[in-house]
């Protein structure tokens, strides 16, 4: 026993190894126990490509610039200082009507951040796609599912903390005809349930073109969001009478019914 101990004592290398062993066993770092669920029959990696959505923002025929003066369909002047909205639940429709559903697809488009106006959809199976479906806003399920993160993080300022629910679309600016302090106009479109829900579903075709995802083919679908669609068809919204809508209800529904066709297809690259 004694000789064995001496042997260890005079072998610093062994001691060092023992030390490492002790450190490893005492270390409180946990093993990575996260298990990535595996697709039972994953297609070969080479069968997937990317597809991009690019949003441009306009007021009728004019490109959106913050602070610039525009006319709404009733002829009322206004400027824009903020324009943000959610795009969620992306589904691509193939020529044969089969569907590709993008998992966890929640995107916050912010007209002031060019990086947010281009959405990448990765891992799209090769094929020819003729249309895209999505929700402008956030589906009701995520509105009742507790704390979320990423695009749905309430810190993004698109969440009502006192009356749970996402702001589907937010437009802020000013209009001379608004009688509110600072001639403010503010449309925070929220409400996710019942008749007054403000999320709207879109299906947008590519004008008989197809977006082909293949090796070296990563198409870009160009979409356009027209702010003036919020103020007419079917409901005329005047800044003098409805300058502020920041709660769910009948007024929010009026505007949501208007914007259900505000996004249109403008091109494919």
């Amino acid at each position, binding site marked *: 026993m004694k000789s064995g101990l001496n042997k260890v004592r005079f072998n610093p290398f062994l001691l060092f190894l023992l030390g490492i062993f002790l*450190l490893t066993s005492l270390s409180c770092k946990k093993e990575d126990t996260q298990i990535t669920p595996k697709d039972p029959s994953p297609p070969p990696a080479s069968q997937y490509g990317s597809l991009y959505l690019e949003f441009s923002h306009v007021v009728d025929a004019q490109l959106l610039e913050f602070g610039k003066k525009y006319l709404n369909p009733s002829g009322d002047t206004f400027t824009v200082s903020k324009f943000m909205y959610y795009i969620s639940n992306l589904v691509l429709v193939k020529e044969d009507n089969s569907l590709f559903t993008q998992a966890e697809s929640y995107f916050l488009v912010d007209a002031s951040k060019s990086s947010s106006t281009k959405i990448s959809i990765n891992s799209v199976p090769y094929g020819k796609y003729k249309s895209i479906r999505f929700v402008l806003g956030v589906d009701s399920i995520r509105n009742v599912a507790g*704390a979320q*993160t990423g695009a749905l993080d*309430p*810190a993004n300022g698109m969440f009502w*903390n006192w009356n*749970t629910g996402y702001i589907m679309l937010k437009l802020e600016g000013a209009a001379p005809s608004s009688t509110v302090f600072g001639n403010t106009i503010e449309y925070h479109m929220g409400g996710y349930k019942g008749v007054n829900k403000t999320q709207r579903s879109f299906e947008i075709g590519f004008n008989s073109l197809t977006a082909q995802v293949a090796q070296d083919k990563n198409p870009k679908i160009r979409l356009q969001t027209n702010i003036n669609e919020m103020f007419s068809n079917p409901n005329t919204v005047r800044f003098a009478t409805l300058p502020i809508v920041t709660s769910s209800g009948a007024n929010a529904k009026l505007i949501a019914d208007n914007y259900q066709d505000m996004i249109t297809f403008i091109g494919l690259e």
Partner: protein
Amino acid sequence: MKPGIVYSSLFIFSSLFFFNCKVDPKIVPVLPSDNISETVPEGWPQPNYTFSTNPVSEAGFILGRALFYETLLSKDNTISCGSCHQLTSAFANTDHKLSHGINDLLGRRNAPGLFNLTWHTSFMHDGGINHIENQPPAPITNTVEMGEELENVVQKLQASEKYRKLFNDAFGDELVTTQRMFKAITQFQGLIYSYDSKYDDYKRGKAQLNETEKRGYSLFLDKCNACHKEPLFSDFVIRSNGLPVDPSLNDIGRGFIENQPQNYYKFKTPSLRNISKTAPYMHDGRFSTLQQCLNHYTGGITNLTNLDPLLQNGISMTEAEKADILAFLLTLTDYKLLSDQRFADPNFQ
């Protein structure tokens, strides 16, 4: 190399490593956090929230507790959740009618007690919040409460060595997100249970109610239980109990959430558990005694707008009956909870 040096350097090195795993007592005082788990007391309904997407762990609970008592959550770092929700008052606010926020601002409503929250179907007096995990951002961002932006809270916590460590312990890495914050706070708030009052012992056959309390219980079942339904002592329905409107607050209650006339002046029915400790009473703390509350139901109902059908004729109670009901209400106090150090402020002990 001399063996002594090898031993001592090895010892120092490993010690550093070893103690690194321990919570620095100067940073986080060690409060008990044992036996933290989901519970459904016998005979109770299933809770509304089950932690199925927020698995409870000791580290998650410890983080949630630290956050609950963390003043960094407020704009000027002076107010925590615990400022208005005190353990000794079953997490209501002793003596304050309305909540006190940053910069001497006065809130609009009375801080309710916090316990058995996983059975609640909505949160806040107007029921505007639909999920327990989404409750924390309301007081944090309310300008007359903690008045802070979530983005700033995340930054402050991310900059703190203490919180990087606590988030790492709870979630496996140091990243601070609002989602992790709210899930951790839910592991704290959602595990505050209250089911150990004299009433509970009586129901389990472990204690006796005296004659007054028994009469009170029987009267309670007859006159109060339709809304303050046992065993949670609330059905959590949002209704008007006919309180006259305070003109300085003009609080339309549920009307703020759903702005239609039929929702005005409605508030969520509170649980009566621990009611002897949660004064002052009602959504604006207007009553300081339980006697005043009972008197309201016998003769104080004046706001008839949307008055709940069950209260159309008030509640008839003689003074003797009120005394019996009061005696029963006092049996709903859970003294075990009020001194449970697992839920105490880790910064003061």
